[in-house]
């Protein structure tokens, strides 16, 4: 066996040192009655065979479709340098940096990641990563409940349905009361907020751009939220923060989001990256690992895991969260991606996404029967109304080689004819004209 170096001779010697006659003796604590009733696993295969098999399976997944599906998870270009760096085994075969003296590379990289997130969100502190955008939102909700001692959560229905569902799932056994604010013309309704916002509210949860792609300035809502002593929590699309008003500028207390767009492949749903940043007063309520700078015995700068008294391995049932392993390697991707782009690259990236989406809007609005929703500005994703059921259109477009968008009817009642279209910097003019042309053809 390739991965087990033990030769018969090794085993003999080792058993001798241990003082047993056979390996089975080492398992004698397992009562006979508890031995496997069955262990029906196929025989092992060579590296070549398994590689061939999985190569075949990979070939059964479409890679030819021109992709206009986003819905919270986006097809951005990943610079080759990002892959080159995360493929360093010194990064990917290490464990969580518990021993700082032999983990400074990781610790500094995470400290840099935390800085990147703070810079993007315009907030003070960040942790070392959470599982994904949804669990990050849930952790933020729990922070608000702990901080305010209240249990009413107001959620805008412009927040990704997947995330809302996750919030409900995680809190089912906690006595938390949710109020959902309907979206009016694809925008969060201020009046509806007004109705429900009161001193029972622990937090208001918003998303920008919202699920329909609508860009908003929530400064006014946040102001109201603070009036009632509640927390303003948001879920954000990091690439959009190269252009859009930052959570910090709008006054949010906690900004979370899915970091996949920062150099992380779509990879059929994961691994992804949950990020969270907050105002510094909230740091001791934050979940997960946090890296801090300090000095060594000779006064030299170094980095360590810090504020660990928040965490499960110290506080156990009283911890701020149960998270242990996080998404460090994806956080590294984000840090490297952000470092490569730099301030200007990030602005360019955001601008290109905006420009191409606007161009797509123009082209699509030319098609009779297609109505591009323009009630609010958008970033790189927008809603169109079609003459028939979006599912049919999507189905026909796949034959033409396009994943043309996400049918909103899947998540929202009464929107069967609506399609959500994302246009990233990766889509060329040619791709967009192709989309328009094919769409016209299938309608």
């Amino acid at each position, binding site marked *: 066996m390739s991965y087990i170096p*033990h030769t018969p001779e090794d085993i003999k010697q080792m058993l001798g040192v241990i003082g047993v006659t056979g390996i089975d003796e080492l398992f004698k604590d397992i009562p006979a009655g508890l031995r*496997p009733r069955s262990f029906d696993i196929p025989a092992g295969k060579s590296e070549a065979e398994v590689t061939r098999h999985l190569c075949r399976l990979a070939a059964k997944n479409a890679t030819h479709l021109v992709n206009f599906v986003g819905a919270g998870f986006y097809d951005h270009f990943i610079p080759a340098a990002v892959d080159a760096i995360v493929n360093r085994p010194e990064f990917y075969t290490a464990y969580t940096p518990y021993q700082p003296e032999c983990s400074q590379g990781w610790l500094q990289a995470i400290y840099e990641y935390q800085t990147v997130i703070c810079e993007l969100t315009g907030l003070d502190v960040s942790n070392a990563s959470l599982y994904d955008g949804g669990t990050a939102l849930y952790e933020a909700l729990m922070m608000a409940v702990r901080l305010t001692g209240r249990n009413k959560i107001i959620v805008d229905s412009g927040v990704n349905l997947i995330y809302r569902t996750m919030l409900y799932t995680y809190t089912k056994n906690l006595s938390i009361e949710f109020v959902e604010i309907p979206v009016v013309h694809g925008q969060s309704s201020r009046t509806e907020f007004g109705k429900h916002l009161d001193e029972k509210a622990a937090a208001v949860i918003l998303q920008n751009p919202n699920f329909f792609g609508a860009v908003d300035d929530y400064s006014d809502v946040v102001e109201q939220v603070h009036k009632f002593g509640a927390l303003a929590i948001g879920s954000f699309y990091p690439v959009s923060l190269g252009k859009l008003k930052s959570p910090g500028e709008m006054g949010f207390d906690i900004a979370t989001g899915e970091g996949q767009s920062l150099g992380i492949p779509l990879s059929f749903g994961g691994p992804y990256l949950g990020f969270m940043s907050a105002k510094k007063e909230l740091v001791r309520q934050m979940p997960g690992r946090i890296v801090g700078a300090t000095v060594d015995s000779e006064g030299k700068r170094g980095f360590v895991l810090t504020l660990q008294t928040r965490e499960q391995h110290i506080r156990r049932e009283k911890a701020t969260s149960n998270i242990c392993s996080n998404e460090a390697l994806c956080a590294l991707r984000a840090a490297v991606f952000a470092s490569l782009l730099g301030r200007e690259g990030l602005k360019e990236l955001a601008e290109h996404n905006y420009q191409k989406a606007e161009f797509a809007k123009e082209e699509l609005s030319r098609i009779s029967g297609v109505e591009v929703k323009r009630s609010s500005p958008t970033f790189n994703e927008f809603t169109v109304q079609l003459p028939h059921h979006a599912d049919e259109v999507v189905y026909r477009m796949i034959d033409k080689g396009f994943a043309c968008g996400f049918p909103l009817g899947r998540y929202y009642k009464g929107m069967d004819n609506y399609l959500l279209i994302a246009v990233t910097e990766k889509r060329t003019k040619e791709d967009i004209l192709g989309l328009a042309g094919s769409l016209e053809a299938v309608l």
Partner: protein
Amino acid sequence: MKLIFEQHKEGRRGFTYEKADVPDAKPLAKKYCRKYDTNLSSVSELDVVRHYTNLSRLNFSVDTNFYPLGSCTMKYNPKFTERVASFDGFSQLHPLLPQLSGGGMLAQGALEVLYEAEKLLAEITGMAAFTTQPLAGAHGELTGAMLIAAYHKDKGARRKYVIVPDSSHGTNPASAAIAGYQVIVIPTGRDGYMDLNEYKNKLSTETAAVMLTCPDTLGIFNPHIKEIADMAHEAGALMYYDGANLNALLGKARPGDIGFDVVHINLHKTFATPHGGGGPGAGPVGVSGHLVDFLPIPRVIRRSDGTYALDYHSHKSIGYIAPFYGNFGVILKAYAYMLRLGKEGLIKAAEAAVLNANYCRARLKEHYDQTFDKACMHECVFSAARQVKNGVHALDIAKYLIDKGYHPPTVYFPMIVKEALMIEPTETESKETLDGFIDVMIEIARLAQSDPSAITRAPLNTPVKRLDETKAAREPNLRWKP
């Protein structure tokens, strides 16, 4: 080393985008745009590559060092699994594709991976069904706790308590607590096992579940395990299995057969997916028959025609616990690993892991105190109590090992062992490597008597010396500032 931000140079560029090939659109209204640019560093691609390449060289890792970090199963991660996960057909696949009409047939390969991985895990653990959605071990625990709650609620009872032994990993009580349970902790008895009387006393019809790690975090297989399970079931409670230590039991015992109702597995431990310096991992959860209905949606199913699909029809499901199907890239690597090893390989892995741990134990037991003098399974736990008498703490031993090029054992855990040295060699390390490590451990034991300062002054060969953790916590500096 300088921070990447400290290498910033105005006007320098690392990555540029082609000029957008579309006509200029009318600009977005100012009120929606950010006023202040970020302070992301402007550096060249070479700056970035040299910076992070050199940073990486400051880390210990499995590919460069022996890494016997207890409870973490830092086995070798076969390179071919990385290659497989990088195939475009997997890495570039959008998770929503199978949710589009007509899209399912364009993701058959990925769905098959999920379906087959679940099946293999179910057979390995003896559970009825699995969900691959949990994104790490602790996430699996939380998922499990929610499944348990849903089960009891379905039975019309909302039970209050979850029982955990004091030797349990911190995530166990934490997961139970955030799921809404009160945690009851059972002490470990003199014999090294969970105190059975205490357990009996605390067990009640208000007990929702008993969370155990098996082999436990002392590396010991509890012979009373079946008894404990039976008692729990009699009380109507469910048994939760923390699978972090499953590596010791592959083909030797199955949680399902022992009587566990809910199981989580750390693919990044037992199934050789790299830990990534903290993550990503994956913590698939398996359940016995009576809990299948509660599993998260969607479930991956195999149709009679052999095609795979997503099934959302489960009114009892707890709902979504992750956006899609879990950390697919990680599950894929674990699947490749299972296919590669196969039945024999998995059994041999458990045997060699246990052999290695017992070999370390045998060679070190005269030199270090054992909390409980018992044959161990996949890891052996010592205490530096004896060395502490000369002022040499477990942490000092850790630092000296670093100087010698070995990653230290786990020293912060399990909490019930003072000055713990939790050594998990894993099956992929050779006798030669173990001997090298053990010899240094013995040298340390000797030095602790003859010349303690030789140990306490370590590390000397590291990029930084011991760091001031108090300062770090007292004056948090958590980000670079311009």
